[in-house]
């Protein structure tokens, strides 16, 4: 028998195998190669987003207000942990063996946890080969003690991280704070990843996009152990991360700190604005807190609940969000509107007739200037009546409706009754009532001036935020216009946002301002003025005090509480450098007693760089005014 033909069986085995492999290779490498290329990318390449450090923030004088401080995380890779001596490790980091084991369990269950939108469940993507922070946010001192011994504990290493630091410990309500992003924020904005920090309040929140900078992207080749092997194709596709060049605030941090010191043991606000630019020089909300208390998880977890529960609401940004009746500080605006409307001339006099409203003892005001100087209540009742009821309609009801809308429009042009476009979140609008407002509350045709006359002296339905009050002071200083108050003076070497370079003109012409401003000067400098405590040697200050009656609704009944003390001012009278509003709650005294001297101290500090009125300063610092509820 000849078996030579069997060689063909074997040859066909070889050829068929070669063909099969050729076809399969063609399919894998030519037809289906994209699938495998994606898979190769998934396993061997990594796109790393490089997040630049957050912007550093300077005040107007170049002082670093917010900086980044280096911290360390103690990282753990379970896969690399061999012969792990929990007792010795615990001793090194100050934990018991049980705590160490518990922390490892916690990391395994919690750190990789994420919400899977497909399964609608929380899943953990914890992996043994990935690094996780075992201890977070260690200081240089803490890590210096641990690091030298880490060689004995395989799988542990230190990693540098950075956190915010506020060297001046003040301006908390302006600067805000950072906190870890929520899942919703991650879903909304792809910039964020778990454990990223985001601005939660203040300008950190408002300027989040500018502060966080631009991310860079690095493509790297990774090994099976997730180590970086090198850059992908020599970094051809990489982009660099861009940190903000720095953000300069109009804030004067020394003035801010001084203001906070003056407001210690008091409740209230100070807002100071540079009238010529609209830059906010200081914005004190008292009581306040050290912004460093809300840096990092540990701190936030410890201090945030305390700050929230504090009855004095230190987290509440009063200058922006508290709406107060302005009291007599409102009178200068009323005078200006009346003159612009032509219902009153600069030399118009009204008798101090105490039949409608009470007043203190002073001569009858014979002009607008005197009325402001004496803060004469009956005068402003009469003046405001002329604005509201101009006699354009026979019906005084209808007349009031038209009049109040004209009045409200004037007020809006002063930035009142609407939110200022200041670069911070948490602003409120205050309240300037108009016809719609009264129609709603009292019924159409059911009211006229006599029903609402308390608005004449800044009481009743009128409400302003302290920021708005300071802006009014700035308008007085500028004699009729203002830039929207703002914090940021320059971003990355440029100017402020465009909206802050637009002059807002009020509806009152500049020519009507001098008599009112003169009245404000007399308030401070003439005998019989209400704000003599605001005098500063060598500086002509124009101001207006206010004493705001304070009612509180307790069990359905309005209870009279101690008065609030208010003062608005600007200085010097000519070429003003600072406009200010001070509001001190529940003092019981008038505006001249507490708010005026506080304002004068701030002005003195800002204009002269130092405060020589030592006694005045001492009196304020020692005062414990607020009734701590």
């Amino acid at each position: 028998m000849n078996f030579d033909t069997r060689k063909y069986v074997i040859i066909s085995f070889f050829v068929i195998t070669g063909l099969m492999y050729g076809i399969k290779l063609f399919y894998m490498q030519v037809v289906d190669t994209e699938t495998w290329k994606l898979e190769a990318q998934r396993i061997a390449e990594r796109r790393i987003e490089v997040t630049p450090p957050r912007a550093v923030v300077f005040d107007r004088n170049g002082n670093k207000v917010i900086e980044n401080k280096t911290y360390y995380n103690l990282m753990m890779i379970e896969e690399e942990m061999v012969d792990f001596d929990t007792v010795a490790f615990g001793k090194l980091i100050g934990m018991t063996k049980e705590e160490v084991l518990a922390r490892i369990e916690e990391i395994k269950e919690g750190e990789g946890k994420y919400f899977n939108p497909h399964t609608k469940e929380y899943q953990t993507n914890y992996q043994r080969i990935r690094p996780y922070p075992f201890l977070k946010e260690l200081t240089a001192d803490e890590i210096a003690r641990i690091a030298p011994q880490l060689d004995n504990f395989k799988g542990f290493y230190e990693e540098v991280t950075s956190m915010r630091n506020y060297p001046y410990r003040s301006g908390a309500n302006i600067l805000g704070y950072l906190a870890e992003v929520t899942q919703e924020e991650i879903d909304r904005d792809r910039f964020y990843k778990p454990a990223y920090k985001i601005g939660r309040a203040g300008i950190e929140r408002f300027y989040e996009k500018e502060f966080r900078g631009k991310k860079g992207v690095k493509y790297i080749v990774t090994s099976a152990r997730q180590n970086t092997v090198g850059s992908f194709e020599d970094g051809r596709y990489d982009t660099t991360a861009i940190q903000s060049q720095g953000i300069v605030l109009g804030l004067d941090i020394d003035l801010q700190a001084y203001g906070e010191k003056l407001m210690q043991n008091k409740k209230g606000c100070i807002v100071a604005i540079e009238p010529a630019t609209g830059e906010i020089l200081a914005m004190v909300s008292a009581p306040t807190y050290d912004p460093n208390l809300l840096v990092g998880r540990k701190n936030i977890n410890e201090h945030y609940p305390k700050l929230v529960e504090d009855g004095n609401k230190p987290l509440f940004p009063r200058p922006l969000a508290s709406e107060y009746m302005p009291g007599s500080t409102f009178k200068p605006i009323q005078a200006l509107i009346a003159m612009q409307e032509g219902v009153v001339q600069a030399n118009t006099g009204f008798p101090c007739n105490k039949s409608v409203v009470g007043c203190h003892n002073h001569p009858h005001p014979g002009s607008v200037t005197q009325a402001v100087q004496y803060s004469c209540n009956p005068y402003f009742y009469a003046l405001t009546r002329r604005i509201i009821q101009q006699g354009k309609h026979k019906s005084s009801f209808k007349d009031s409706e038209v009049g109040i809308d004209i009045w409200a429009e004037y007020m809006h042009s002063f930035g009142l009754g609407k939110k200022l476009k200041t670069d911070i979140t948490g602003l409120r609008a205050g309240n300037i009532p108009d016809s719609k407002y009264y129609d709603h509350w009292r019924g159409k045709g059911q009211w006229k001036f006599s029903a609402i006359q308390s608005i004449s002296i800044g009481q009743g339905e009128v409400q302003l935020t302290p920021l708005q009050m300071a802006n009014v002071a700035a308008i007085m200083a500028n004699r009729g216009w203002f830039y929207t108050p703002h914090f940021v003076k320059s971003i990355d070497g440029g100017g402020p946002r465009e909206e802050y370079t637009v002059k807002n003109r009020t509806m009152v012409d500049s020519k009507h301002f001098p008599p009112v401003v003169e009245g404000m000067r007399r308030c401070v400098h003439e005998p019989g003025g209400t704000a003599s405590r605001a005098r500063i040697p060598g500086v002509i200050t124009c101001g207006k005090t206010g004493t705001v009656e304070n009612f509180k609704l307790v069990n359905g009944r309005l209870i009279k509480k101690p008065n609030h003390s208010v003062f608005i001012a600007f200085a010097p009278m000519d070429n003003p450098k600072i406009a200010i509003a001070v509001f001190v709650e529940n003092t019981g005294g008038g505006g001249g007693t507490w708010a005026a001297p506080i304002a004068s101290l701030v002005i003195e500090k800002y204009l002269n760089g130092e405060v020589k009125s030592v006694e005045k300063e001492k009196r304020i610092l020692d005062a414990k005014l607020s009734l701590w509820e």
Partner: protein
Amino acid sequence: MRKNDSITGNFDWILFGIYILLIVFGISTIYSVTYNPEHPSIFSFSEMYGRQIFFVGVSLFLGLLVFLIDSDIYRKFSIPIYLFTLSLLIIVLFTKPINGAHSWLGLGAFGIQPGEFAKIGTAILLANYMSSFNVKQQNGQTVIVSLAIIAIPMLLILLQPDAGTFVVFTAFFFVMYREGLTFDPIVLRIVNAIPGVRFKSTWLGTHFIPILFVVVFLLVITLIISHKPILLDAYPGEEFSGYWRMFIALFVTSILGYLIMRSIFAKRDARRALVIALMAFSTSVALTATVQFGFESLPPHQKTRIELWLGIYEPEEGTGKVEDGADYNRSRAMTAVGSGGFSGKGYREANVATTKTEHVPECETDFIFSPWAEERGFVGSIFLVILYTFLLLRVITIAERQRSKYNRVYAYSVAMILFYHFAINIGMNIGLVPIIGIPLPLFSYGGSSMMAFSVMIFLLLKLDSQRKDVLN
């Protein structure tokens, strides 16, 4: 007739050329894969590329040695050579296990794998034995002796254990097939034991080897069919082995086969049809049951590999994605190959199959095809497949031109061993064959494999060059 007047007179330069080409490509790939910037020279002996060059040097020296010895010597000393390789296989069992297997015999700094050399010893003795008898003389004894020559080293290799080399030894069955060594005497003895049956020859016995491989292929299907247990609504909570499906299918097929045969055969052959049907049924059941049982008793990781290859793998709950777990090696190697694309990523540009990233384990040895395919793309990989196929066909050409049966049997052994290595190695890199750790001949890093294949090929070249001396 011209006697060979020089050593190189009848030298097969084509086979030698392919041999050198594969080695050069192999070294270049090892250099790319294991490149260490601290030792950039390709001759650095601290690196794998330097060592591989050293291995090639030793191999060429051994090859020259083999070539200088008269081919008759190998024939005469085939039993001692065989016994020597067997003794190495026994000694190696008493060494310290590396990675759980006793495969390495330490010789100073370098170890050798006796399993690689046992192939040569077996090939020589098989050639010697099979050339010693005429085809017509073959009987049950010749089959059993031939099988024993193959089975003894296989058994010893199984003890190491080294599944890859074990599988490669089945290559010799094809050699037996080519030489017409039939299993008929054994099959007949079994079949004719049935009373009233008297066959002179059976198709099964004659073509036993190819049938065996076809059957193995079909058995794979058995595994796929029976891997899922049967759940019956009538017996809630109870699981029945999935093998029953196979059993029932075989039973039905046998009855159908019997009925068909009875209608075709003459009436007096009805009894024969019954015997055939019964035989087919019982052997099928026995075979499939054995495979099923054998599969169940495999170590878990090998079971998983086969399940993955068959596409019936189901990961245990909570173990995560398949490709990152049990199927890691296979999916990574395939990713490297597939991502190479048409023209490849370029020399030393691989980032999946390289020791830099370690995504493909053993990418300088068992998985060396994947970096080659990743860097050279389809162009390179099809070239390599063609080159190996060409090598195999060249060895067959050489085998068929031999005058002596001894030479031919040896040449076929070389061809089949090379084929097994080529088919399994590249097959597992492209997902066509389950993972079996054997090197790509002349290409993979490794001294033993390089030396063994070199000696194997040089011996073939030597036999071939002296083919005209033999008058057979």
